[in-house]
């Protein structure tokens, strides 16, 4: 469904993403993990059209989306959320979600019905008429998810929707994400919360210093020495092996 090949992004002398290849297949939940500054969000931004790749190809459903603007990519069925939540602060939750719903209909009543439906899916029904600026962190993360979902995407790009949530809230949102997948939406997510990554993903890619260093099932990736070193520092894998 999504094919990224040989994508590179440079900021001046810094190579933020270096010839990355990856693919996401239909109905999968694929995660992208890696230490802070690894280039995960930059990669997302290129896929969703917010940044232009310096090299490589990004294909969605076998057609190149490189050079398209974000709204065009969204209309094709691929939509992203933001790591730093970007609510329409002056509007209510309902109005926020309706903006997403309007991408498929010009009728206000239909957009409202769709928004209410989506709010139910993500568990925000009771917050519909509350101002978005008054939502908690968990509420804002859900709102990001709801707005994106309201555009009826085929592929959902979730950028750290669990960061800053407590364990109970994480369990809630994991359930919500599974529910979304069961409705037929493919999911590609960036996540730091390992428990959720293990629990959710069919496959995982690991990015470090802009390069892909591992991929596979979450369990195999977690045992990969290179991955452990990326997270814990040089020599950590050996130390852990000795300790065990």
């Amino acid at each position, binding site marked *: 469904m999504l094919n990224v090949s040989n994508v590179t992004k440079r900021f001046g002398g810094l190579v933020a993403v270096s010839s990355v290849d990856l693919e996401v297949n239909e109905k999968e939940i694929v995660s992208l993990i890696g230490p802070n500054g690894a280039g995960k969000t930059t990669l997302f931004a290129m896929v969703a059209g917010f940044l232009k790749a310096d090299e490589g190809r990004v294909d969605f459903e076998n057609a190149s989306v490189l050079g398209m603007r974000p*709204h065009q990519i969204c209309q094709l069925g691929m939509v992203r959320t933001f790591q730093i939540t970007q609510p*329409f*602060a002056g*509007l209510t939750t309902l109005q926020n979600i*309706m903006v997403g719903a309007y991408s498929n*209909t*010009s009728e206000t*009543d239909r957009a409202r019905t769709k928004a209410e439906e989506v709010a139910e899916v993500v568990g925000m029904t009771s917050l519909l008429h509350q101002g978005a600026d008054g939502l908690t962190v968990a509420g804002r993360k859900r709102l990001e998810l709801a*707005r994106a979902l309201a*555009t009826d995407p085929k592929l959902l790009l979730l950028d750290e929707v669990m960061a800053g949530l407590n364990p109970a809230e994480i369990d809630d949102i994991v359930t919500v994400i599974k529910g979304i997948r069961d409705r037929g939406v493919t999911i590609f997510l960036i996540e730091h919360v390992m428990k959720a990554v293990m629990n959710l993903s069919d496959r995982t890619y690991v990015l470090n210093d802009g390069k892909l260093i591992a991929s596979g099932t979450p369990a195999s990736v977690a045992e990969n020495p290179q991955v452990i070193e990326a997270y814990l520092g040089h020599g950590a894998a050996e130390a852990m092996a000795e300790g065990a």
Partner: protein
Amino acid sequence: MTNFRSHLYFLLLGAIALIILPYFISSRFYIDVLTLIFFTAYLGQSWNILGGYAGQFSFGGVMFFGTGAYVSSILLTTFGFPPIFGIFLAIMGGALLGLIVGYMSFRSGLKGSYFALITLAFAELLRVLANSVEFTGGGVGLFLTYAPGLSNLQFETPVGFYYFALVLMFISIAIVYWLESSRFGAQLVAIRENEDAAEALGINTLKCKIYAIMIMGAMGGAAGTFYSQKYLYLDPPIAYSIHLSVEMLLVTIVGGMGTIFGPLVGAFVLHTVNEVARHFIDTPGLSLIVYGLILIVIIGYLPNGLIGAFKKKEKKSGSTSLDKKTSRGDS
């Protein structure tokens, strides 16, 4: 549903009151002041669509007014083209100018103060241009002949212009009323609140912003025809005066940006304050100081304008009108 109904009745009552008002006012002065209030409210509303709803503050809104005024006036003086049709060409001229300015500035990503400055620059450019070319009459200006009649959009009594301005204002309110409940309006507000998020959710932000400035331009163009037919004279300093650019944003900010009645409330309050200060204070210039002080107080203490202050009170005693609007379908 009852909420919405009573809202509509209230609106209808207000409209009827304004329509029959001239039958109770014999003073030419008051009719003229009210005409000016409607005219400013109308221009404020045009600014409100781009500034209040789409969040793009322009500082050269007068350029559409001036261009519309020149379009219909030149057509009248050179070709004898009747202003009742000329006003539509003025509208198209304003919209076209909006398209050009919007495309050039939004395409290159100008926002905030940069956008404000580029619109100011466009207005100034047009003023200098109008001064130096021949077909605008240059610095001498254009004199229109007084020939009352509907085809000339000129009227024998001030009441005629009162209704002309009132119709323009009603149309502007209808446009914004439509915005409030339409997809296009929601998209503009989304752009105002967060442009990146709007773009991510499938909104063509460039197109929406250009449409918004074209609507503003079209409205400004009609205002130009109104003005030139009422005052029968046009020169570059009038057509492209910074004062009018400021006035249209001022009435909107004072009344409340992004609200249906903000520009009307702002225009009413500011004109009233201005007239009252002039009437009661004899020392020359002092009335302007009082006017300025009141402006400072309103803008300093009511950042959301007069309507915003009113809404806040309403919020404390229940839900906001914004809530009511969006939930009216299921109530």
